[in-house]
């Protein structure tokens, strides 16, 4: 269900977007010959590029007339490295790529393995995965909100957002023992049972979170500087967003009602009740509003997951397939078979049937896809990720045409790219 639009006025009258849509903003020849242009290297080591993005900007006064993004500064060949690891040792890799939306990345890879293995996961694992992914979405949006507001001068937002972010990281620590990159998802289910005390703490958080979002909105929603620096900037029409392959909040901020959690439900998203916020404007402000609303919806999903999980005490958290899943620790002392299985999985890894699959999930940044090829051996033959940030950066040139240099920070920030995921 779309959120009622606040402004019905179409902002795309007389669109200035040329066809075909370029991913590089070219300077008009006449302008180049004027000799008035200034070429500026924005980044790669600039604090507001969210990592190491380099934008080569050509300025006419303060107006951006030419723009090309140079990426690859964080390229560490995750995909190549994963080919060298056994399937279960490769699981920690994807979460390091998008270091804010790590749960969704981990989930996509684990779901891909399970799809090839045709492995059923117990329902407790399904709901817990969903809960953690939504907590992670809130966390990711909070970091975006904090940094995006910080760049536009709203420093206090940073402290408020990080207060709740820390609570989420504490919850993750309670579950997996680590604050980020938990590697809590395992092919077949979860690495460990949900610890006692988690539900109580998590319930406190879901009770508190809606009022925290209200607080954030009270801080900036009527703030004149915030509004002037976000409204009507970085315009991206619905058609262009689809043509440029945008996904997630950027696509929904351009008025396209599309969310994989609803349209292509995985896990148990078809059993929970939530709304997909959509805004028609396609500007920085719309993306901000979509993300704020998504945090509220995610909190609702987390609360529903808690309701279900509380009734699943004592149920298994991982599938009982000894060829893939590590046997319970206590069995190793008494059972020869368990010891052999444990040894085989740890040293050699499990074999995954031959085939190729593409598994998309809705990460905090949009469609995160995992394409996996297996030759039937203990290591993946090829892993390729569809990184939503990589695609989002392609839209910078379109969003940026005739923007000012100061707006560039707001516009690049609104696309919410994580460079670790762009460069992989």
């Amino acid at each position, binding site marked *: 269900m779309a959120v009622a639009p606040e402004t019905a006025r179409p902002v795309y009258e007389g669109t200035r977007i040329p066809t*075909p*849509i370029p*991913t*590089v903003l070219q300077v008009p020849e006449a302008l180049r010959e004027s000799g008035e242009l200034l070429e500026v290297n924005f980044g790669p080591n600039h604090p507001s590029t969210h990592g190491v993005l380099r934008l080569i900007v050509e300025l006419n006064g303060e107006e951006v007339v030419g723009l090309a993004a140079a*990426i*690859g500064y964080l*390229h560490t*060949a995750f*995909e*190549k490295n994963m080919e*060298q690891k056994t399937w279960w040792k490769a699981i920690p890799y994807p979460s390091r790529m998008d270091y804010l939306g790590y749960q969704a990345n981990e989930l996509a890879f684990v779901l891909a393995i399970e*799809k*090839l293995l045709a492995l059923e996961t117990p329902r407790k694992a399904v709901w817990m995965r969903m809960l953690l992914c939504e907590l992670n979405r809130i966390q990711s949006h909070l970091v975006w909100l904090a940094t995006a507001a910080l760049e536009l001068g709203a420093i206090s937002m940073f402290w408020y957002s990080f207060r709740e972010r820390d609570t989420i990281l504490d919850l993750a620590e309670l579950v997996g023992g680590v604050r980020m990159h938990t590697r809590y998802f395992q092919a077949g289910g979860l690495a460990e049972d949900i610890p006692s005390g988690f539900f109580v703490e998590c319930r406190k958080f879901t009770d508190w979170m809606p009022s925290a979002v209200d607080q954030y909105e009270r801080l900036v929603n009527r703030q004149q500087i915030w509004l002037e620096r976000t409204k009507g900037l970085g315009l991206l029409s619905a058609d262009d967003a*689809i*043509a*440029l*392959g945008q996904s997630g909040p950027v696509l929904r901020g351009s008025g*396209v009602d*599309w969310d*994989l959690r*609803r*349209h*292509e*439900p995985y896990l148990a998203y*078809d059993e929970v009740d939530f709304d997909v916020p959509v805004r028609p404007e396609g500007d920085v402000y719309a993306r901000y509003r979509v993300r704020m609303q998504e945090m509220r919806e995610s909190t609702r999903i987390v609360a529903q997951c808690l309701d279900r999980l509380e009734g699943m005490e004592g149920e298994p958290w991982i599938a009982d397939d000894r060829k893939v899943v590590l046997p319970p620790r206590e069995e190793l002392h008494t059972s020869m078979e368990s010891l052999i299985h444990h040894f085989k999985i740890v040293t*050699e890894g499990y*074999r995954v049937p*031959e*085939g*190729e*699959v*593409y598994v*998309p999930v809705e990460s905090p940044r949009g*469609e995160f*896809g995992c*394409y996996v*090829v297996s*030759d*039937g*051996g*203990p290591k993946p*033959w*090829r892993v*390729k990720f*569809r990184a939503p940030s*990589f*695609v989002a*950066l*392609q839209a910078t040139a379109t969003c940026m045409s005739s923007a000012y240099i100061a707006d560039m920070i707001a516009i690049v920030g609104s696309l919410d790219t994580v460079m670790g995921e762009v*460069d*992989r």
Partner: protein
Amino acid sequence: MREAHGETTVVVETARVVEAATHLRDERGFVFLADISAADYLGWGGHGVAGYIGTAAGRDLNFPATQGLAALPEPKPKRFSVSYHLLALGERSGAARVRLQVWVEEGEPVPSVVTVWPTADWHEREAYDLMGIAISGHPNLKRILMDEDWEGHPLRKDYPIGGEPVRFSGEE
């Protein structure tokens, strides 16, 4: 065209990829290109079969049998595959996905689909950069993740791991 793991793969001739792409976009509603994934199948099936010491090429006593495959995988037509993951933005629960696939040997050109889906721009540059797929008709086919003067294509199977030169490592 084949179905596996609940996914549909359509294999087309390389020369007709733009035609197929346009058809899928305009007639079948696949307006959204999610990803272009290239894969290198050099040495596919070369790990041998477990239980039999050796590879398909012959007996090799030095090859650890337990590391081999359970069965030899299905042979691939050519060395590289390029997969276009397409998505139709349908109504609720109406998402449809299809994988358009072409097979090429090294250096064989793959026509660019930038004119069909503008988002293919960077994906194709990445396929060229990391896998060395010769995309033809691309407006700006430069390396995207590696340096412009980088040699080789790192995600190919014959590209060594740890073989890249490290500056100032004292091993000039």
